[in-house]
C-alpha cells in the first residue's frame, strides 16, 4: 500500500543512523577499553539505541539494541573478540543492558508515536476549527467546499481529494484539490448511472481510492474521494469527522437556500395578495358607478327620458376613462418595478403641466379650489412629462379626498438648489401622523376606513423614484399634509450658460 512507504523509509534511516553511531562510539572506546569498567560501554551504547528509536521508531530501536548487544559482547566483555562471556558479573552487565534497553526503546518509540499523533491531531483540530469557522461565516457552498478539500489534502497528505455531489440524479465533481480525478477513476467510483441510494457511509477502498459517502440526517448528500494519502487505519476517525463536517455544511447551505427560496416565495405571495386587494378596491369604485348607470339604462321597465339616458351614458364614459387610467397606472408601475419601462425624458414647463392637470380634474375637483403657486422664472424640468402628470393627478386626488369641502389645495414649486425643483401639494385635511410618513407610500397603506385609492401614492412613489428623485410627506403649516417631490432642472444649453455668465458682468 502506498501509505506504508513512509514509515518503512523512516525505520531504515533510523537503523542506519543508530548503527553508524554504535560503530563510531565502539571505535572511540576500543583503544581505552582496558581502562574502562565493564559497565561503562553499556552506558555509552544506550546513546545509539535512543537515537535509533527517536529517528526510526521501535523497529529501528530493536535493531540497534541487537547491534549494541553484539558489539558490547564482542568488543568490550572479556574474553575479547568472542561471543563467550567470562566472569559471571559480565553476564549481569550484558543481561541488564538487554533487559533495560528493550523496554527503553519501547517507551521512547511510543512516546514519539504519541507525540506525532498528538501533533497530527492538533493539526486536524486546527483544520476542523477553521472549517467550523468557515461554516459559521456563511460562505457560499463553492468557497466552502474548495476550502474543505484543500485543507483535507493538506491534513492527510493526499495526492487527490475530490468531492462529488449529486446534481439532477447524477454525481459530478463539485470541488477537488491536487490532481483532478481521471475518467477511469471516476468510472471506478461511480459505476453506471451512479445513484446515491446504494451508498454506504463506511469508508471503502476501491483500487487505491478511499471513498466515503457523506450523509446528513440519514440522507445521502455526496461522495468524498481520497487517493494517494497517508490514511492509515488510525486516521479514519478524523477522516469521518471531516466527512461529517462537510456533510453538515452541504446540508446547511442547501437548507438555507431552501429557506430563502421559501421566504422569497412567501413575500411574493403576500405582495401579490396585497396588490390584488388594492386593485380590486380601486377598480370597484368606477365599476360601481358604471354598473349603476348601465343597469338603469338597460332596465326595460324604466321609462327614461333621452336627457337622463345621455347623462348616464356620459357618466359611464367618464368612469370608463377612470378605469382605463387606473389600468394604465398599474401597468406602468409594474413595468417600472420590473425594470422594463424607463422614463422618457423630455424638457417641459412645470407650470403648463400643472395647469393642464388641474383643468383635467374636472368634476373630480369636488368644489375644491386648486391654487397654483409657481414662479414665472422657474426653469423648465427634465422628466417624463406623462409620468409626472400622473404623479400630480394622484397627489391632487389624494388631497381632494382627504380635505374638507371647499378648502383650498395648493400646488407650489420652487428651486431647491442649482439643478433641482421641489414641488409640493398641500391640503387642509387631518394630515399624516409622523409614524406613518414612510409607510403611507407603501402598497395599500391606507386608513382602514378610508375608501380612497390606496394605489395612488404607491404609484406616485414608483414614478418619482424611477426618475432618481425623492418623494415624501411633511406636516403642512396649520394642519394638513404636504406631499413633496423633487424634479431635475433641464440643463441649460451652452450658449445660454455663456449668455447668463455674460449678463452677470
Amino acid at each position, binding site marked *: 500500500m502506498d501509505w506504508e512507504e513512509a514509515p518503512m523509509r523512516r525505520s531504515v534511516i533510523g537503523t542506519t543512523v543508530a548503527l553508524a553511531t554504535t560503530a563510531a562510539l565502539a571505535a572511540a572506546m576500543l583503544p581505552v577499553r582496558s581502562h574502562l569498567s565493564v559497565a561503562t560501554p553499556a552506558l555509552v551504547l544506550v546513546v545509539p539505541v535512543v537515537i535509533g528509536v527517536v529517528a526510526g521508531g521501535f523497529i529501528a530501536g530493536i535493531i540497534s539494541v541487537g547491534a549494541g548487544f553484539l558489539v558490547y559482547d564482542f568488543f568490550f566483555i572479556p574474553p575479547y573478540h568472542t561471543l563467550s562471556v567470562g566472569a559471571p558479573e559480565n553476564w549481569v552487565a550484558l543481561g541488564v543492558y538487554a533487559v533495560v534497553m528493550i523496554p527503553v526503546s519501547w517507551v521512547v518509540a511510543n512516546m514519539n508515536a504519541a507525540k506525532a499523533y498528538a501533533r497530527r491531531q492538533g493539526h486536524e483540530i486546527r483544520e476542523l476549527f477553521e472549517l467550523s469557522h468557515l461554516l459559521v461565516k456563511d460562505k457560499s457552498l463553492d468557497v466552502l467546499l474548495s476550502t474543505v478539500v484543500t485543507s483535507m489534502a493538506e491534513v492527510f497528505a493526499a495526492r487527490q481529494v475530490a468531492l462529488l455531489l449529486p446534481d439532477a440524479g447524477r454525481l459530478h465533481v463539485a470541488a477537488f484539490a491536487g490532481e483532478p480525478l481521471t475518467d477511469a477513476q471516476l468510472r471506478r467510483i461511480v459505476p453506471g448511472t451512479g445513484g446515491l441510494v446504494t451508498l454506504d457511509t463506511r469508508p471503502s477502498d476501491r483500487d487505491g481510492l478511499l471513498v466515503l459517502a457523506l450523509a446528513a440526517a440519514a440522507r445521502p448528500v455526496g461522495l468524498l474521494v481520497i487517493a494517494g494519502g497517508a490514511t492509515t487505519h488510525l486516521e479514519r476517525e478524523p477522516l469521518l469527522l471531516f466527512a461529517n463536517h462537510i456533510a453538515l455544511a452541504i446540508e446547511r447551505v442547501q437548507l438555507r437556500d431552501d429557506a430563502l427560496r421559501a421566504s422569497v416565495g412567501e413575500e411574493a405571495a403576500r405582495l401579490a395578495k396585497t396588490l390584488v386587494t388594492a386593485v*380590486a*378596491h380601486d377598480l*370597484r*369604485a*368606477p*365599476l*360601481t*358607478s*358604471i*354598473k*349603476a*348607470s348601465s*343597469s*338603469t339604462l338597460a*332596465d326595460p321597465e*324604466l*321609462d*327614461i327620458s333621452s336627457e*337622463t339616458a345621455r*347623462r*348616464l351614458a356620459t*357618466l359611464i364614459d*367618464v*368612469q370608463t376613462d*377612470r378605469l382605463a387610467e387606473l389600468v394604465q397606472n398599474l401597468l406602468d408601475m409594474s413595468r417600472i418595478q420590473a425594470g422594463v419601462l424607463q422614463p422618457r425624458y423630455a424638457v417641459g414647463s412645470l407650470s403648463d403641466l400643472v395647469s393642464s392637470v388641474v383643468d383635467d380634474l374636472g*368634476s*373630480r375637483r*369636488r368644489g375644491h379650489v386648486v391654487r397654483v403657486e409657481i414662479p414665472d422664472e422657474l426653469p423648465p424640468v427634465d422628466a417624463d412629462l406623462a409620468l409626472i402628470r400622473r404623479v400630480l393627478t394622484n397627489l391632487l386626488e389624494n388631497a381632494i*379626498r*382627504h380635505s*374638507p*369641502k371647499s378648502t383650498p389645495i395648493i400646488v407650489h414649486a420652487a428651486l431647491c438648489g442649482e439643478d433641482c425643483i421641489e414641488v409640493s401639494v398641500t391640503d387642509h385635511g387631518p394630515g399624516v401622523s409622523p409614524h406613518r410618513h414612510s409607510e403611507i407610500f407603501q402598497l395599500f397603506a391606507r386608513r382602514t*376606513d*378610508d*375608501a*380612497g385609492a390606496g394605489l395612488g401614492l404607491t404609484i406616485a412613489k414608483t414614478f418619482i423614484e424611477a426618475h432618481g428623485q425623492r418623494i415624501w410627506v411633511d406636516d403642512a403649516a396649520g394642519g394638513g399634509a404636504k406631499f413633496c417631490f423633487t424634479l431635475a432642472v433641464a440643463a441649460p444649453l451652452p450658449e445660454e450658460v455663456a449668455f447668463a455668465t455674460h449678463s452677470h458682468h
Partner: protein
Amino acid sequence: MPHILIIDDDPDLLSVCRVGLAAFGHELHTAETGSDGLTEAAIRPPDVIVLDLGLPDLDGLEVCKRIRTWSQVPIIVLSAEGSEDRKVDALDAGADDYMTKPFGMRELNARLNVALRHRPADEGDSVEVVVGPLRVDLMHHEAMLDGHSLDLAPKEFEFLAYLARNVGKVCTRRMILENVWGPGYGKELHYLKVYAYRIRRKLDDEKGQLLQSDPSVGYRLAAPND
C-alpha cells in the same frame, strides 16, 4: 314620493343614483361625508338611508351608531371591501341590510322597497307579522302557513318570532343567538344552521326564499320577492 338619503364619498356614484332612482320614483338627497350625512338626516329625516362604510371623515359604522341614538330609520350599508366582518359590525351597530359594490340599480331599488315596506311603525311592536304566505302571531305564539297552523318546537318558534319582529332586517348570527338562546351564547353557529334547516322544512322553504340567509352574515325573514 319616498325620500332616500345616500351618504357616499364618490360624487359620480351619487349622480348616477340620483338619475337612476328618480326613474324608479324615489326622491334622492345626497351627502359626501359622514358629518354632512348626519346633518342631512337630522334636518330632513329620510325614509331610508343608504350609507357607504368607507367615508373620508367618519367611519360609516360610527355614522350608523349615531343615527341609531335618535332614529329607527332603515339603514342599508354599502361595503366596497367585500369583507364580511365590516358588514356584520354594521348590522350589529343597527343597520338593517347591506349591499356589496358594484350593484345594479334594480337591486338597490328592491332593497329600498323592502326597507320602506318594513319601516318600523310608529305605534310600537305589532302583535302579528305577515310575510308572504307566513303569518306569525307573536301574542299567541303561533305561526300559520297559508292558513294552516305550523307545529314548531319552542326554540324554533322563538327563532322565527325574533326574525319576524325584525322582518326585512338582516339579523346577524350573534344577534339571533343572544336574543333567542340568551346572553351567554354567540359562538354556537351550528345551532342556527340546524334550526334554520328545520324551520325551512316546516315552512316548505327549502330554497330559503322566505327565511333568507347569507352563510357568513346572518338571517332575514322577508317575502320571497323582496
